[in-house]
């Protein structure tokens, strides 16, 4: 279930005053089962990029291979692609429309042409996966709390049983607890449901502890594409494009500059604390 992008370019409103080169020569490969983070600030092209993954936007030039097949091929079935690559938009709760939660989640499977029984089965399964309690299934989606609405909306995509799950800032507007719950749930999905997960965010701190790899987008191009530790090592360049590495990265670098022997590639608090304790002990032993 790999996704491969080759020299993708995308130009908005070509030939008008608003022409904008949103993606510039983007080449990427996302193998099956990976948990990838895409980071960039507003206007970096990250949202445009992910809409290419399920064929909602067609590249101006370049090729996109899903499982080795070019999705811009003549007889390629885009509907089938959309069944395989589930896309959760930003503020997905704004797409809820049915009379109750269960029916709303059934919308995707129904569009896939499944029997009503099968639809319901998949919907229940998806709702369980996102951890929404059964007592809410017959509530109107509009009566749920913000966090619950978002879960229901994510379930709406999961019910289609995608192989790849793409989420565009799934935590926007949630409070810290809601954010952590959603991210934990996504990590759980990645592990249990054997899904490739692509998480778009503008917060490094949020995704540092979850993802295998980070793709940093800037002005429509891929700026970095590496494991978190290596990406954060470029914290100064990240800053120059309006992104920031986690706070601990800054602390570790500052300590190193002041002559303390700490590992600068620590990204979590645990690692940082371990590194600092070790450095201090070494120093004391030397004295």
């Amino acid at each position, binding site marked *: 279930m790999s996704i491969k992008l080759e020299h993708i370019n995308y130009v908005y409103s070509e030939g008008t*005053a608003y022409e904008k080169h949103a993606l510039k020569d983007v080449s990427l490969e996302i193998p099956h089962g990976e948990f990838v983070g895409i980071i960039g600030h507003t206007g970096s092209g990250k949202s445009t990029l992910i809409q290419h993954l399920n064929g*909602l936007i067609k590249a101006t030039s370049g090729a996109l291979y899903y499982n080795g097949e070019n999705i811009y091929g003549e007889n390629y079935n885009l509907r089938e692609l959309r069944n395989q690559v*589930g*896309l959760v938009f930003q503020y997905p709760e704004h797409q809820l*429309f049915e009379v109750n939660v269960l029916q709303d989640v059934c*919308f995707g499977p129904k*569009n896939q042409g499944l029997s009503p029984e099968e639809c319901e089965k998949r919907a229940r399964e998806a709702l369980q996966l996102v951890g929404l309690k059964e007592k809410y299934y017959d509530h109107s989606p509009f009566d749920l709390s913000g966090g619950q609405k978002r879960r229901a909306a994510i379930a709406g995509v999961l019910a*289609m049983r995608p192989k790849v799950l793409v989420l565009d800032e799934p935590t926007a507007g949630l409070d810290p607890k809601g954010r952590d719950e959603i991210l934990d749930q996504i990590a759980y999905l990645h592990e249990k449901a054997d899904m490739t997960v692509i998480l778009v965010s503008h917060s490094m701190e949020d995704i540092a502890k979850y993802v295998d790899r980070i793709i940093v987008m800037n002005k429509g191009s891929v700026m970095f594409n590496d494991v978190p530790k290596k990406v954060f090592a470029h914290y100064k360049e990240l800053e120059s494009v309006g992104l920031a590495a986690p706070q601990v990265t800054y602390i570790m670098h500052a300590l190193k500059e002041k002559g303390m022997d700490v590992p600068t590639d620590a990204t979590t608090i645990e690692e940082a604390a371990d590194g600092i304790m070790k450095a201090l002990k070494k120093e004391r032993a030397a004295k």
Partner: protein
Amino acid sequence: MIRDITIGQYYPADSRIHKLDPRVKIVCTLLYLISLFTFKSILGYVLATVFLFGCIKLSKVPFKFIVRGLKPIVILLLITVGFNLFLTPGGETLVHVGFIKITEYGLSTAVYMAIRLIYLIMGSSLMTLTTTPNSLTDGLEKLLNPLNKLHVPVHEISMMMSIALRFIPILLEETDKIMKAQIARGADMESGNLIQKAKAMIPILVPLFVSAFRRANDLAMAMEARCYRGGDGRTKMKPLIYKSTDHVAYLITILYVVAAFVVGRYVPFKLWIF
């Protein structure tokens, strides 16, 4: 497609037309539109063309922006032209193939009708492109002010209009987003008969309405928080006062209308009989 409608989209530029009082632009546009329907000879259209293109030039709005306003009416245009072309009797028969018959009168009516429609849209697009929706509604409010005496809530209506205009682009963007989100969930908008297509709109319309109401609610609160309490006791940041250029603009338009009317109707220069 909905994005192509230029009516209601302001093009910022620093031009004489932009600086005119909105009342001038509304009244002159109306006069211009009426003038289009009085001509009986091609000379009238020549004058109308000169006037329109002169205004476009003065406005500094790129020509393609004005032309883009025509896109949504292409079909209407084709139908009108078709009807006039095939169904107007009179004059010499130019083409006669089977049941299709095009007469001289038919051809000239079709051409003039097309020009009228195109100029009509271009003229009104020029007005909306050079006038912010707010000053447009301000202008309307002031022009319609006499209706206040008949208890018509003129201020409220114009406030509603300007808010609607502000939210049109936002709601269009939102429609686009919701549509994409539902397509990502496998929704099919293209195939099926009319009823199925109408049904396919529900997953888009329901969220759109919900969002519109949420926005309306938020906006009402924001307006109240900024002490909005209707039109009474309100002052204006940009009160409408006629300047000398506005009088000049009125004068030019009236001259045009009179000239066009006289020339277009009574000067016996006819390319085609009308």
